[in-house]
């Protein structure tokens, strides 16, 4: 792999006419398991590959790396399967790794290629990278649901707690409650406990053993679940199903949460509530794929098993737009193993398409397709085993914020509905949830569900905030405009 500060082919922020000169065969957005796996495959086949990532280190969410400044003797201690990361990293070949590059827009160029617009570093230097083919491996972010007190300092996503620990060696808190739904709660709780936090409890809103039938069909997963269970027990962490954090409390900062016993739809039972002291709540209800870039390019989406939008791909990870591929969580949340495998498949498809040959499986690894089908099937089963129950809306009070950015309370959303706003779009226009800084990434799903809809794919013209100057500069560059 090449350090990110080496000179690389670049269409240049102002590089009129340079485009054709320095074009990559493949530009990959996202250096997580999916992007890294694809980069290795394509680079080893001789393609000129660039991997762009907003982060300071490769690895993505699952393999988030510590800064070297920590001089960690056992960097793998915070990871499950660290050797896989080492293999991915060492297989990157000649791929250029462009870190600190935030991609805010992608466009089709006139010649069939793509312009990838980035902001580089803290100085936000505008830079455009040209690509013949594009792989979108931007991963996902935590799904969160509003509840009273969810915007108190001390409440954060489960992924944020992981990111603090894995990427900064900072514990989210000293006394932490982990809550939400899905198997991700377990690694979050066990790593916090191993790092010395007191985990006051793990509260799974769904069934604690919802996963069991699927896990039993996959011995590896059953063993993993048992291992987490064992570690929780060793740290004396209670793990309870059918329990949800329905309110967070504190005067300015979190001091305790209310945990309620909930039915299968997540409606609290009368009287089944307990109060738990904590300085931190790590909460997550699964993940939402980051689809801004495929949406900008007009890639078609489909629905996952829970009704959420995902990038639609064929068997070779090609999207509906020629030359654009997607892999990892963008095609459906399925975890790091599936992301890596999809990256391999995408890399092979890009190589075949670039050379104009049919996509052939690697003869040394004929089981890829079967393995993918198995992992994807398991991912679907997980989504079905841990659905978001409709009853979360019964946790809301009129003054509970739905949109954190524009500070829109539930009462205003209800008013908009009473005024006749029948869908998420009309609610948004009337009450303005999702119109702030995050562009509805955090509240979009909740607003859609409150409108009785499945969440729609994003329609954001830009994927990252950008200065008006950069926008104007891009507008003035006719050579990138679609023909």
């Amino acid at each position, binding site marked *: 792999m090449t350090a990110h500060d080496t000179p690389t082919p670049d269409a240049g922020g102002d590089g009129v006419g340079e485009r054709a000169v320095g074009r990559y065969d493949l530009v990959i957005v996202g250096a997580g398991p999916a992007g890294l796996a694809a980069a290795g495959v394509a680079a080893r086949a001789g393609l000129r590959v660039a991997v762009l990532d*907003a*982060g*300071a280190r490769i690895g993505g*969410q699952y393999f988030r790396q*510590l*800064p*070297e*400044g*920590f*001089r*960690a*003797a*056992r*960097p793998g*201690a*915070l990871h499950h399967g660290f050797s896989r990361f080492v293999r991915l990293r060492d297989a990157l070949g000649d791929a250029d790794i462009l870190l600190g590059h935030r991609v805010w827009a992608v466009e089709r160029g006139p010649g069939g290629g793509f312009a990838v617009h980035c902001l580089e570093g*803290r100085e936000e230097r505008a830079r455009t990278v040209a690509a013949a083919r594009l792989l979108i491996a931007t991963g996902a*972010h*935590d799904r*969160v649901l509003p509840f009273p007190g969810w*915007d108190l*300092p*001390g*409440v*954060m*996503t489960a*992924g*944020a*707690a*992981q*990111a*603090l*620990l894995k*990427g*900064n*060696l*900072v*514990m*989210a808190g*000293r006394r932490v409650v982990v809550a939400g739904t899905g198997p991700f709660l377990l690694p979050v709780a066990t790593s916090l406990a*191993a*790092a*010395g*936090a*007191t985990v006051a409890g793990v509260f799974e809103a769904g069934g604690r053993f919802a996963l069991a039938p699927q896990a039993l069909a996959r011995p590896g997963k059953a063993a993993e679940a048992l291992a987490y269970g064992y570690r929780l027990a060793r740290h004396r962490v209670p793990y309870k199903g059918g329990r949800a954090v329905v309110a967070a409390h504190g005067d*300015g*900062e979190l001091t305790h949460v209310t945990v309620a016993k909930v039915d299968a739809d997540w409606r609290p039972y009368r009287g089944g509530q307990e109060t738990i002291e904590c*300085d931190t709540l790590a909460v997550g209800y699964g993940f939402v794929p980051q689809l801004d870039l495929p949406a900008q390019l007009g890639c078609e989406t489909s629905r996952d098993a829970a009704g959420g939008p995902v990038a639609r791909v064929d068997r070779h990870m090609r999207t509906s737009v020629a030359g654009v591929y997607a892999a990892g969580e963008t095609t459906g949340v399925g975890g790091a193993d599936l992301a890596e495998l999809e990256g391999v498949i995408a890399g092979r498809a890009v190589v075949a398409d670039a050379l104009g040959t049919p996509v052939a499986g690697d003869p040394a690894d004929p089981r890829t397709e079967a393995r993918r089908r198995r992992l994807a099937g398991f991912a679907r089963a997980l989504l079905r085993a841990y659905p978001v129950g409709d009853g979360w809306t019964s946790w809301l009070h009129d003054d509970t914020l739905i949109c*954190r*950015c524009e*500070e829109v309370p539930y009462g205003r959303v209800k008013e908009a509905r009473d005024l006749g706003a029948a869908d998420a779009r009309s609610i948004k226009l009337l009450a303005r949830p999702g119109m*702030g*800084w*995050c562009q509805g*990434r*955090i509240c979009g799903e909740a607003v859609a569900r409150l409108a009785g809809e499945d969440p729609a794919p994003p329609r954001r013209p830009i994927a990252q*905030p950008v200065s008006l100057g950069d926008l104007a500069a891009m507008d003035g560059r006719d050579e990138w405009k679609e023909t």
Partner: protein
Amino acid sequence: MSGVGGSGPDGRVSGASTVRNGDEGGGMSGASPYRLVGARPEPGFEVRVDGRPVPVVPGQTVGAALHAAGIRTWRTTRFGDRRRGLFCGIGVCFDCLVTVNGVENLRACLTEARPGDEVTTS
């Protein structure tokens, strides 16, 4: 800005208590994130947050350094005066905005701290 470690009634940080960065044990077990990974961090540096020194291990984000120092909120919302800090941790929610060296609206969770940074909160 406020934190477990001493904030004034105006919401700004008061006092200049020495804060450590991350390597605090979890009580009786003696476990710590540093011990877990066998970290022996290279010499760190300080940034100033509303004038108060906050230690940083090279490579940490501004948000992580603040959080480790017990400073868990550093922004107040426009309408409801609600206090905010880290929420999504990966640049999605924009709760964690800070001003660094006069540059406004940087996401603290993404912005790597550099020696001499002057962080101001609102």
